[in-house]
């Protein structure tokens, strides 16, 4: 195995791994606090906008009769989608024993949890009477009123709460050995706090064994769960009769889009963490390469599903669907439609070139473009359908209001805020799994060396069969 292909340097000292990761949790510097302040300001803007919207009504969002939904739902889907990369990738890669997930899954899972915590706000913000939100929950009411279980929105409530608790548990359980490390290294109140979070972990064989099983079982649950969550989110649209929404391929399309935006977000955060925490040795370019390849593959799946959707619309020959598609490509939203296709299907081709994959500034830009593409995709699903649905009398073009934008931007602030807090309180790289990685890598290398030694011997003994190499 060449150095170039190695995920990580196997000779990293374990002591150093601990120190390097714990160093990332040191007291934050000036730039951290500036970013922190900016995020808080963004959140405050959103809060102010929400208070205004709460007092005045949904009209402040600029919604109207055809556009009953707009940016909030698009952003909701975006954040839900972003949450998929973390947990889903972590779980899938764990099950298929892809070792390279180990240095990066922690922050990806944190990203999942936080984007879910962000996404969860949007159905609430979006409600006309948010104070009655709890009516969608199946609680026993003296009036004998239950939610309408046939509504995909109720499924959403179930699915998202399940997913949020499951992915948060996955994150927390996966962090227990690291909490023990932190407990053993920290002093004062932190030691106590980490001690509580470590739940008495000491790393004995029974704990590891049960841990391994638990983690695998959770991963097994999380994969179908994550798929179902985004399928259910997609059924908000697919279960309706609106042209452009009532599409059979929506569940896989949404899942693919979710993985896509999530992978792009992982790339972004990867580069940021790598740069700011100087984690070049852990978040190596080889891991970046693998992430990029995965992203590219998903981008192609997404593009394929797009083509499928267009093709089935075309062949299905349903007037409403067909005209909507033509109007998307050629109507008032055309520039956004083509922007989406450029960002989602053309820009990822940058990931096909190794030189670019290893050039971090380019990758940073590309990852942002991909995410923009995915955000726009969500919006393209919501807005144009409502703009150009069955009844042409109610056709209208709408771009969000300032209140709406403030809240959407605020959600990015809120997500960043949570993430900023996370990286200073918790290890953003899984220390114990990086150790595992180096351990196994070392052993593999040794085995390989031995094998090479034996095979060279056997090669030496097998002279006279040159043709084999060419085959």
């Amino acid at each position: 195995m060449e150095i170039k292909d190695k995920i990580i340097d196997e000779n990293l000292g374990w002591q150093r791994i601990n120190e390097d990761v714990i160093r990332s949790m040191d007291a934050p510097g000036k730039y951290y606090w500036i970013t922190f302040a900016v995020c808080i300001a963004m959140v405050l803007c959103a809060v102010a906008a929400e208070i205004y919207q709460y007092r005045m009504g949904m009209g402040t969002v600029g919604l109207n009769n055809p556009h009953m939904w707009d940016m909030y739902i698009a952003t909701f889907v975006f954040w839900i989608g972003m949450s998929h990369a973390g947990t889903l990738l972590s779980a899938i890669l764990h099950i298929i024993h892809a070792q390279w997930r180990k240095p990066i899954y922690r922050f990806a899972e944190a990203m999942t949890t936080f984007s879910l915590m962000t996404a969860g706000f949007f159905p609430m913000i979006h409600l006309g009477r948010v104070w009655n939100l709890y009516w969608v929950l199946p609680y026993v009411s003296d009036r004998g009123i239950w939610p309408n279980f046939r509504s995909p929105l109720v499924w959403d409530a179930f699915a998202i709460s399940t997913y949020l608790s499951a992915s948060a548990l996955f994150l927390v359980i996966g962090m227990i050995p690291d909490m023990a490390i932190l407990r053993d290294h920290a002093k004062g109140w932190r030691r106590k706090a980490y001690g509580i979070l470590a739940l008495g972990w000491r790393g004995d064989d029974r704990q590891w064994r049960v841990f391994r099983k638990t983690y695998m079982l959770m991963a097994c649950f999380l994969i179908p769960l994550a798929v179902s969550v985004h399928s259910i989110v997609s059924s908000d649209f697919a279960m309706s009769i609106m042209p452009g929404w009532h599409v059979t391929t929506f569940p896989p399309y949404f899942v693919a889009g979710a993985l896509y935006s999530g992978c792009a977000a992982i790339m972004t955060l990867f580069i940021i963490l790598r740069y700011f925490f100087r984690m070049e040795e852990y978040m190596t370019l080889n891991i970046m390469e693998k992430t990029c390849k995965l992203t590219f593959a998903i981008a192609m799946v997404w593009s394929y599903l797009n083509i499928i959707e267009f093709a089935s619309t075309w062949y299905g020959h349903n007037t409403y669907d067909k005209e909507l598609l033509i109007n998307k490509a050629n109507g008032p939203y055309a520039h956004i439609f083509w922007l989406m296709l450029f960002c989602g299907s053309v820009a990822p081709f940058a990931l096909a070139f190794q030189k670019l994959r290893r050039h971090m500034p380019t990758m940073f830009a590309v990852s942002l473009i991909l995410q923009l593409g995915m955000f726009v995709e969500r919006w393209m699903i919501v807005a144009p359908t409502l703009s150009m649905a069955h009844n042409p009398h109610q056709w209208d073009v709408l771009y969000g209001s300032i209140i709406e934008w403030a809240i959407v931007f605020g959600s990015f602030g809120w997500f960043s805020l949570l993430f900023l807090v996370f990286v200073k309180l918790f290890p953003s790289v899984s220390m114990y799994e990086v150790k595992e990685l180096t351990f196994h890598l070392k052993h593999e290398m040794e085995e390989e060396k031995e094998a090479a030694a034996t095979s060279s011997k056997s090669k030496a003994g097998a002279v006279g069969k040159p043709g084999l190499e060419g085959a």
Partner: protein
Amino acid sequence: MSKHRLLAMFKGFDDSLPVLRDIKAGGCAGVSIDDVDYLSPIEHPDIDEILERKVNVQKFTFTGAVFGVTFGFFFLASAQASFLVQPQGGKAVVPFPTNFVLMYEMLIFFGIWTTVFSFLFLAGLLRKRGTLYSEKLTVDQCGIMLEVDEHKLKSVKEYFKKQKSIEIREEAVT
């Protein structure tokens, strides 16, 4: 006769694995492999070949999942059945029984929570089990922990020293 708990620290997995094998082979007089706890900073599936211990998490998980799916059906069915006024009418575009969706979610929900609780229980977390511990265990060293009778203490310590143990800690079991 008082018991003592011993923790022998080793430089790494490669140093400690032969020791475990040796113990299993009866290399350490009076010590059974079943009494040994193996502590390490990372997970080593290899040692299960030596220790031969079972895990039962999946049974809890299965129970939880079955409960979840059953509860899901009956909860939803009874909720749907106990509407004061049945909200009838309206044609779902896809007339898919919603119970399937929600039962599926409940299966996962309960499955995951029972898994987590069984993990906490079976891994012996959240329980006090002596103070014998070394912080090196979360860095790079491995440890073998076992309880011995007082009269064997000395011989076992000797055994570990011979096996290149870096450090041996002990405490009395109360």
